[in-house]
């Protein structure tokens, strides 16, 4: 019998549990959960604010999940140290958990820049966790003027979630465009206009210089009066546990395709890691739920003595705001090919005869066919890319490929 310790209780941890149990049915698994919640669907917090889901429905797994998986979960405590010489994980209350292998699935934390006067703001929130969300919900009412710092995925999803529940929403960002991590400078203004049409106000290329109570004085000299402040500037991977024991760490904990860190018997998965992005050939933090699950699963299988690699990681996002949906994947480095359609816009980025990435605006049907070309590095000369650009369809593949896809077990 082995002893596994999983630090963190998000989706990467669930993947790890399920990976371990696919190989080892009985050994002890202990999960250290800083949050006092069973694993839940973190990306759904904005849908909760919007009234599209409930805390009960947001549970990622069934109520009897940990019992069925034979896991012990320690809630409300934090892992503070991994002692590699005695092979123990030490918790905040000095509890020691002996391990044969550890998976660090510690996630990330909000990055809060040292804004002058931030301590004078009474109602300020991050938007990362269920508890953040409940606290924010408690602080708002229909008269609230909300100021969101950060026009990325988190800030804008927060804006959408709050829309209709507050008086006004203003979003600022140091970048000159919205969603700067996933949209290029031509696509971003289309989404910005759509958000503005829905009542969200923007102050781009601008950021608070200082706060004076409920007023932000911006770098531009403008001022913003608000009742509730949301800080969604960015996130930082929780790397300290591995860094402290001399493990290789960059912006995230460095992992290989088996999810091993540079320290023996220590694995890592999810938002705290930096793994290979095959669409650009460089290691990157890819803080995305699907990657978290797949990394966690691979880590779990390998921890339990099986063999699984996760070597297909690419950035990808499917995200909608007020009915306008966008999907993006891969990297945008390469020749850009554009298709304008009746309902939307498609941009493809081709490099070395491969589809490196894409941006789809509005028209998202069967987008997974495109994603699979990126993920599988399918040479574009083996498919009818002229068809594919216009319409995502398996008609663009050869009959032999289609026979495999639709005539066999896949």
């Amino acid at each position, binding site marked *: 019998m082995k002893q596994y310790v999983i630090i963190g209780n998000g989706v990467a941890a669930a993947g790890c549990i399920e990976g371990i149990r696919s190989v080892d049915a009985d050994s002890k698994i202990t999960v250290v959960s800083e949050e006092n919640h069973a694993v839940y669907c973190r990306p759904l917090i904005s849908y909760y604010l919007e009234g599209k889901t409930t805390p009960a429905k947001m549970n990622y797994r069934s109520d009897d999940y940990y019992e069925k998986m034979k896991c012990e979960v320690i809630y409300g405590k934090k892992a503070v140290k991994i002692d590699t010489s005695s092979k123990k994980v030490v918790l905040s209350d000095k509890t020691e958990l002996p391990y044969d292998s550890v998976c660090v699935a510690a996630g990330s934390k909000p990055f809060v820049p040292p804004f002058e006067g931030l301590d004078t703001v009474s109602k300020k929130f991050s938007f990362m966790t269920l508890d953040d969300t409940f606290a924010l919900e408690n602080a708002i009412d229909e008269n609230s003027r909300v100021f969101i710092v950060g026009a990325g995925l988190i800030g804008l999803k927060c804006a959408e979630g709050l829309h209709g529940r507050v008086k006004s929403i203003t979003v600022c960002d140091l970048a000159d465009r919205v969603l700067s991590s996933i949209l290029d400078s031509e696509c971003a203004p289309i989404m910005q206009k759509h958000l503005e049409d829905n009542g969200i106000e923007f102050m781009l290329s601008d950021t608070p210089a200082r706060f004076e109570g409920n007023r932000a004085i911006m770098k531009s000299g403008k001022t913003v009066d608000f009742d509730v402040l949301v800080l969604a500037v960015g996130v930082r991977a929780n790397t300290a546990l591995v860094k402290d024991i001399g493990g290789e760490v960059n912006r995230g904990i460095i992992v290989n395709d088996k999810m091993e860190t540079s320290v023996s018997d220590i694995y890592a998965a999810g938002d705290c890691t930096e793994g290979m992005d095959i669409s650009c050939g460089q290691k990157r933090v890819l803080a995305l739920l699907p990657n978290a699950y797949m990394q966690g699963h691979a880590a779990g299988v390998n921890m339990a003595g099986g063999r699984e690699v996760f070597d297909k990681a690419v950035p990808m996002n499917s995200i909608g705001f007020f009915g306008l949906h966008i999907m993006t994947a891969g990297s945008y480095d390469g020749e850009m090919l554009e298709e304008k359609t009746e309902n939307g816009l498609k941009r493809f980025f081709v490099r070395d005869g491969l589809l490196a990435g894409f941006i789809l605006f509005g028209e998202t049907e069967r*987008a997974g066919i495109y994603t699979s070309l990126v993920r599988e590095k399918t040479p574009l000369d083996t498919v009818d890319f002229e068809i594919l650009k216009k319409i995502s369809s398996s008609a663009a593949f050869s*009959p032999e490929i*289609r026979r495999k896809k*639709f005539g*066999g077990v896949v």
Partner: protein
Amino acid sequence: MKRVYVNEEWCLGCHLCEYNCAFANSGMKYMTDALKGKKIFPRIHVEGKDKISFAVSCRHCTDPICVKSCIAGAISQKDGVVKIDKNKCVGCLTCVLVCPYGALSAGENGIMQKCELCLENSCGEPACVLGCPNRAIVYEERGEEK
């Protein structure tokens, strides 16, 4: 397990499978009530080009990436069948972004739907296959490759 397989050389592109699918999943007694004059939301779709046509529905993969990618924990696999819990789905379309077959699509209310082999509706086995005039889709056991 039995799955729906495609014989594209026999597909006429008649779209009957789409109608039979939408009817079987409508819960209604009469096909006209369920389908006539309405935009239908089938879980199987005929695609093609030139003289080629073929019907695409969920492959019920042995290692389904939609299950691993669902941000709402709404997609699961039991006894090989990939199912979606419509109560949990929020319509984020991440499954559409990852499915390499293009097998998932949104239903009328924006919540996702997919082929669940008609195992839980009144048909009991895939209605698309039962109604296919030319055996261009079949429901059978084929070799497990993995």
